[in-house]
C-alpha cells in the first residue's frame, strides 16, 4: 500500500479511509466524518435492463429513476430496479453477484458490478486513500469454490479508481465493528475477542478472533437469496414481491399464517438457521479450539434484520451441540451497516499506520 499524499487533500467533511461492503444484495459504503460520526450510503446490488427506445426514455424521465446508459441499453440501478419491476409487473432484475462472488453465469457481471461500485464509491478524497472492501472467506460447504478471482478483480478495480485498496474478510469487518469483549474466568477483559457472523444475501461469513487477530474464518453458502428463491419456488410469487414482504412485513416471532409468502419465509428461515449453525459448529469442532473464556457472538447482515431473527437464532443455538462455551449471541445495533463500518474502521487504521510511516 503506498503512502497517501497529504498535499493532495481537498476540503472534505470526511476523514481519509473508506469501507465498502460489496454484498450480493447490497453495496454499502461508510466514511467517518470530521466530527467523528459516520455516514453510510447504500444501493441494492441489482439492475434492470431496458432497450433504448422512445418509450423507455419517456418512462425513465417521468419516473425520475436512477439509470446508466451503456452499450445501447438502459440499466436502472439499485432500489429503482425493484421499483420498476414491481411497477411494470414483468421482467427480472439482474444481479451482478451470486452467493457472495461475481456471478459466473452472467456474461457482463463484472462490468455491471463496476457500474454500480463506481457510481456509489466515487473518487478518493486524497491520493491513494486507503479503502477496505469486504470479501467472503472460502465456503466450507462448497470446497472447490474460492474467492481469489473476486478479490483480485475488486482490488484492481478500486486501485484503478485511485484508492489504496485492500480486502477485509466480511466476518472480521463485522467483528471489528461490534468489538466484542471476552471475559475470562479470572475476570480479565480481552478486547476484540469473539465470533463475528455476517448473514448476507449470498453467504454467511464467520470470523473468530482473539485480540483482533483472526483464528479461523470461513463462509457458508445459501443465505438470504437462497431463502427468497426457495420461497419463490413454493409460492410462485414474483421475487421482488417476496423481498418486499421479507423486509417490510415479516416478523419471525409472529408470522402471519394468512399471508401467502410469510409462512414459507418462516420455514426457510428455520432451515437456514439449522443448517448454518450445524455447519459452523461442525467446522469449529474439527479444530478443537480452546479459549480463555466463553465466546461472545455478534451477528450482522441484511438477512439478520428480519424482525424476531435473533430470538429464533438463539433458540436454534440452544438446541445445538456447542463446540465451545458461548457467553451471548447479540445482534448488531446497525446490522445493515456493520460490515461497511468495520471495513471503514480498518481503513482508518490503515491510514493512521501509513501516516506514522
Amino acid at each position, binding site marked *: 500500500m503506498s503512502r497517501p499524499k497529504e498535499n493532495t487533500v481537498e476540503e472534505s467533511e470526511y476523514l481519509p479511509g473508506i469501507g465498502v461492503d460489496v454484498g450480493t444484495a447490497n453495496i454499502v*459504503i461508510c466514511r467517518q466524518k470530521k466530527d467523528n*460520526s*459516520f455516514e*453510510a450510503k447504500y444501493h441494492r446490488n441489482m439492475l434492470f435492463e431496458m432497450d433504448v427506445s422512445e418509450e423507455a426514455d419517456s418512462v425513465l424521465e417521468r419516473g425520475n429513476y436512477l439509470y446508466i446508459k451503456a452499450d445501447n441499453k438502459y440499466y436502472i440501478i439499485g432500489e429503482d430496479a425493484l421499483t420498476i419491476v414491481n411497477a411494470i409487473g414483468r421482467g427480472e432484475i439482474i444481479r451482478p453477484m451470486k452467493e457472495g462472488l461475481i456471478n459466473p453465469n452472467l456474461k457482463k457481471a463484472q462490468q455491471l458490478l463496476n457500474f454500480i461500485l463506481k457510481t*456509489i464509491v466515487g473518487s478518493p478524497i486524497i491520493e491513494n486513500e486507503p479503502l477496505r472492501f469486504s470479501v467472503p472467506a472460502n465456503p466450507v460447504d462448497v470446497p472447490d469454490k474460492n474467492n481469489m478471482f473476486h478479490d483480485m478483480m475488486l482490488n484492481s478495480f478500486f486501485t484503478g479508481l485511485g484508492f489504496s485498496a485492500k480486502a477485509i474478510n466480511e466476518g472480521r469487518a463485522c467483528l*471489528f465493528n461490534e468489538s466484542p469483549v471476552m471475559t475470562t474466568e479470572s475476570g480479565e477483559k480481552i478486547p476484540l475477542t469473539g465470533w463475528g457472523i455476517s448473514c448476507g444475501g449470498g453467504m454467511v461469513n464467520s470470523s473468530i478472533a482473539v485480540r483482533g487477530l483472526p483464528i479461523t474464518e470461513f463462509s457458508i453458502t445459501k443465505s438470504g437469496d437462497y431463502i427468497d428463491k426457495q420461497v419463490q419456488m413454493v409460492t410462485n410469487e414474483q421475487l421482488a414481491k417476496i423481498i418486499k414482504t421479507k423486509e417490510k412485513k415479516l416478523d419471525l416471532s409472529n408470522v402471519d399464517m394468512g399471508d401467502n409468502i410469510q409462512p414459507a419465509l418462516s420455514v426457510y428461515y428455520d432451515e437456514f438457521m439449522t443448517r448454518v449453525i450445524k455447519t459452523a459448529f461442525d467446522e469449529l469442532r474439527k479444530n478443537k479450539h480452546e479459549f480463555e473464556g466463553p465466546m461472545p457472538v455478534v451477528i450482522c447482515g441484511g438477512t439478520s434484520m428480519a424482525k424476531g431473527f435473533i430470538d429464533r437464532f438463539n433458540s436454534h443455538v440452544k438446541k445445538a451441540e456447542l463446540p465451545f462455551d458461548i457467553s451471548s449471541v447479540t445482534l448488531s445495533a446497525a446490522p445493515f451497516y456493520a460490515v461497511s463500518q468495520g471495513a471503514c474502521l480498518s481503513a*482508518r487504521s490503515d491510514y493512521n*499506520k501509513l501516516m506514522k510511516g
Partner: protein
Amino acid sequence: MIISDGKCDSRREEKIDLSSISEVLGQLLGNKLDGLLSGKMGILLEEIKKNRNHNIRSDGGEIAIDDEESLKHIAKIMASKSEVYKTNITELGNKQELKDDGEKNRTIDLLNNLPD
C-alpha cells in the same frame, strides 16, 4: 485531420450523447465547454474549431479535429472508452448517519496496534 486509435470500431453505430462528448473533449482540450450540455452539434463544432491547433493525445496517437465526421468519430472512441457515458445520477446512494460516542475511535486505536 488525423485520427489514429486502434480501438475504434467504426462499425458501431451509437447514438451520440452530446453531454458526454463535450465533457470528454473539454477534459482533453483543457477548456471548459460549459453551455454545451444541451447544446447542438454546430455550437460544439464551433468550440472545437476554435481549438483546431491543439493536438489531442489519445492512447493511439495524435488527433486533430476540423470537421464533423472527425468529431463523430472521436465521440465514438470516447464513448467506447467510457464505461458510463450517460447518467442522470448526481448524488448517489441512500444516506444514513451512524452516531458514535467515541467507541469506534477506541476500536481504531486497538486496530492501530495490530500487525497488517
